[in-house]
C-alpha cells in the first residue's frame, strides 16, 4: 500500500517485532505517545511495555542500555529523538558500541540499531536540525544508513535490524511525510553497503542521500531540459560506502557534484571527493563540486532556507561544473 517514510519505518518495526521476540524498542516518548513523529505508533499497544520502553531523559543510558541488551542477546532498536541530542550518547556509541566486537575479539558483539531523525527544513527549534553523519562515518565499527524513500526506508531498516553490528539509521525528517510510495506488506530487505542509481545519465554524476535526494533529482530534471544528462546516485548506506558505483559512474561522466546538509568542512562530501581523487582523478574534466551547509550553526526558521542546499543551488553547481 502507499506509505510515507515514517509509516514505512513503523511497518518495518512492527513486522520485525512480530518475527523476532527479542526485538525491543526504547527511547524517549516511543511508547504511549508513539514517538514525536509517530514512527513507533501502535507498537506499545501491540507488544506491551516490556518490548516498547519509554525511557527516562537519558541519551547516554538509552544507547548504553541498548548495548547491554544486545550483549545479553536482545535486538534493541533505540531512538534518539533528534540528532541534535545525540552528542550526549557519543561516548557510549564510540567507546563501547563500536568496539565491543573488536575488543572482545568476537566473543561479544553489538547488534543495535539507533534510529534518529535528522536534518533541517521543518522550521524546528534550535538543535533540531543537525546532520552529523560524518561523525558516525569517521568512527570505526559503525554502519550508517539513510533511506530517501518509503520503499527504501522499510527495506533498509529491516536489513539494519538484522545486521549483526551497530547501525545508525538516520531518518530524513524533512521528507518523513513528503511523498507516498507503494511499500509491499511482504518481507523484503535491501542490502546495506549498496548505493542506487536513481537516474541514468552520461554528463555528470550527482551524489546525494536522504532529504537532499529530492532537490538533487529536481535539479537533474531541470538540467535535462537544458540537454544536460545527470546521473543521480542515492548513497543509501554512508558506511560502508559503495565506492564502486560512484567511481564507475564518475569515470563515465567525468564530472560530479556532491550534495549534503551538513557543514561543508570535513563533511562526507570531502571523503567522496577524496575517493574520486584516488580512483578516478585522470577521468575528471572539472573539480568535483560540493553543495553543502555552511561552516556555521544551522540558522533558526527565519533563515534556515538560506542554509539548506536546494534545487537552485544544485542547478548552479551543475552549471559551474559543466561550464568549467
Amino acid at each position, binding site marked *: 500500500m502507499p506509505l510515507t517514510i515514517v509509516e514505512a519505518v513503523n511497518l518495518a518495526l512492527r513486522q520485525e517485532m512480530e518475527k523476532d521476540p527479542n526485538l525491543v524498542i526504547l527511547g524517549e*516518548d516511543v511508547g504511549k*505517545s508513539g514517538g514525536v513523529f509517530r514512527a513507533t505508533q501502535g507498537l506499545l499497544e501491540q507488544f506491551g511495555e516490556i518490548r516498547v520502553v519509554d525511557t527516562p531523559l537519558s541519551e547516554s543510558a538509552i544507547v548504553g542500555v541498548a548495548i547491554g541488551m544486545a550483549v545479553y542477546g536482545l535486538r534493541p532498536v533505540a531512538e534518539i529523538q533528534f540528532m541534535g*541530542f545525540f552528542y550526549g550518547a557519543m561516548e557510549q556509541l564510540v567507546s563501547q558500541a563500536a568496539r565491543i566486537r573488536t575488543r572482545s575479539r568476537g566473543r561479544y558483539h553489538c547488534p543495535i540499531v539507533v534510529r534518529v531523525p535528522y536534518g533541517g527544513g521543518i522550521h524546528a527549534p534550535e*538543535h533540531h536540525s543537525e546532520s552529523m553523519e560524518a561523525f558516525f562515518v569517521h568512527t570505526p565499527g559503525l554502519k550508517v544508513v539513510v533511506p530517501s524513500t518509503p520503499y527504501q526506508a522499510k527495506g533498509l531498516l529491516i536489513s539494519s535490524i538484522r545486521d549483526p553490528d551497530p547501525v545508525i539509521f538516520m531518518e530524513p525528517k524533512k521528507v518523513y511525510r513528503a511523498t507516498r510510495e507503494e511499500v509491499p506488506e511482504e518481507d523484503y530487505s535491501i542490502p546495506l553497503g549498496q548505493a542506487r542509481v536513481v537516474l541514468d545519465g552520461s554528463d555528470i554524476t550527482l551524489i546525494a542521500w536522504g532529504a537532499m535526494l529530492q532537490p538533487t533529482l529536481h535539479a537533474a530534471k531541470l538540467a535535462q531540459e537544458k540537454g544536460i544528462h545527470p546521473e543521480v546516485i542515492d548513497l543509501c548506506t554512508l558506511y560502508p560506502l559503495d565506492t564502486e558505483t560512484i567511481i564507475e559512474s564518475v569515470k563515465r561522466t567525468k564530472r560530479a557534484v556532491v550534495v549534503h546538509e551538513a557543514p561543508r568542512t570535513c563533511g562526507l562530501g570531502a571523503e567522496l571527493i577524496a575517493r574520486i581523487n584516488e580512483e578516478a582523478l585522470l577521468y575528471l574534466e572539472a573539480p568535483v563540486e560540493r553543495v553543502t551547509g*555552511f561552516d*556555521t550553526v544551522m540558522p*533558526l*526558521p527565519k533563515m534556515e532556507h*538560506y542554509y539548506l542546499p536546494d534545487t537552485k543551488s544544485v542547478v548552479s553547481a551543475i552549471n559551474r561544473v559543466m561550464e568549467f
Partner: protein
Amino acid sequence: MRRNQGFVRALRPGQALRRRVIEKFSIEHLQILDENGNCDDELRPLLNDKEIQRLYEWMILARTLDERAFKLQREGRLRTYPSLLGQEAVQVGSAFALEQSDWTFPSYREAGASIVRSFPLRMIYQYWAGDERGSWTPQNQNNFPITIPVGTHIPIAVGAAWAAKAKGDPIAVLVYFGDGATSKGDFHEGLNFAGVFSLPVVFLCQNNQWAISVPLSRQTAAQTLAQKAIAYGFAGLQVDGNDVLAVYQATKEALERARSGKGPTLIECVTYRMGDHTTADDATRYRTQGEVEQWRKKDPIERFRKYMEKRGLWDKPYGQKILTEAKEQVDTAVKEHESIPPPDPRDIFRYTFQDLSHDLTKQMETFLKAMGNGNDKE
C-alpha cells in the same frame, strides 16, 4: 522511622554493634498558601502589599503573554512554542526573589521568569518566531539565553557560580530545569561539582509531572526529586510550586544561603504542565483529562487571588485593570515584534567567531553572489 528500604529485613536485634545507622536524612515540604488561599502566617514572607500585588500582576502578565503566544502559533505567526500555563507561580515567585546582580540560566519554558527579569516581551515572541536576535540578552541583564538540549545548561550555571565565587562577587546563580532534566548526566555532574566546591547556585526544578509524554514515575523511582540533593551533600527542599509565596520564600532563603557562602540548594517545585508539551504536541494522547482537571483546582493564580481578596488586596476593578494592562503590554510587544525587519542573512556567518574566518568569508561571498544572481531562495 522509615529506613532506607531493603535492608530492614536484614536487621535483627543484637546487631547494633557492627551493623549500625551512620547517616540520617530528611526531606521537607513547604506550603504557605493552601489551595483555598489560606495563609500560614508563621511562614508568610516579609512582603508588603505592593509586592504582593506585583507578584499577582507578573503572573497575570505571564499568562496573558503565554495565551497570546499560543494563539499566534496557531495563526502561523510563531513557530513551535512551549507553554508555561500552570507554572506561573514557580516562575514568578522564584524570579521575584532574585537581585538584579544575580544570574539566571533558564531552560526553554521560563518566559514567565524572564519577564520578571525584565527581558523584553517583544524578544520572547521574536525568538519563538525563529529569529536568533530574540536570544540576545539586553546589556544590563545577567540572563543566559534559553537552553534547549535538556540539562546542558546546568554545568554552565555551575561554572558561572564558580567564577562569581572566585571573583568574590556577592551574587547567586539560579538555574531552571524540569523533572525530565534530573535524569540527564549533566544534572548529576553539575550538581555534584557545585556540592564539592560549595558554590553559590540554586537549582530550581520545575517538577511539572511530565517530560513530553513521559510521566515522573518513568524519570525516577525516588519519592521526591528534592532528595537527590542528598547524593551531593547539600540541602534539598520540596515546595508547593503552585504557591507563589512558598516558592518565593524558599528561593529567597536559598539565594541568601548561596550569597553568604552556605553553598548550593536544590528546590523541587511541585507543579503541573497544564498545556501540551509544546504547540507541536497533543497531550490527550498520553494523559487523562481527569488528571488535568484535578490540577486546575490548584491553579496558582486563582489561589493567590483568593488570598489577596481575603487581605483586601484584590477586587474586581483591580483585577480588570491588571488584565487590561497586561493585554495592552502584550499587544504592543506583538506589534513591535512583527514590525522588526527580517534578519540580515550575513548574520548567519558573522557570529560564528569574533572575526570571520577565511572559509566563512568565502562561503558568505559565494552565498551573497548567488542571492544576487536571482538565486535568492526567498
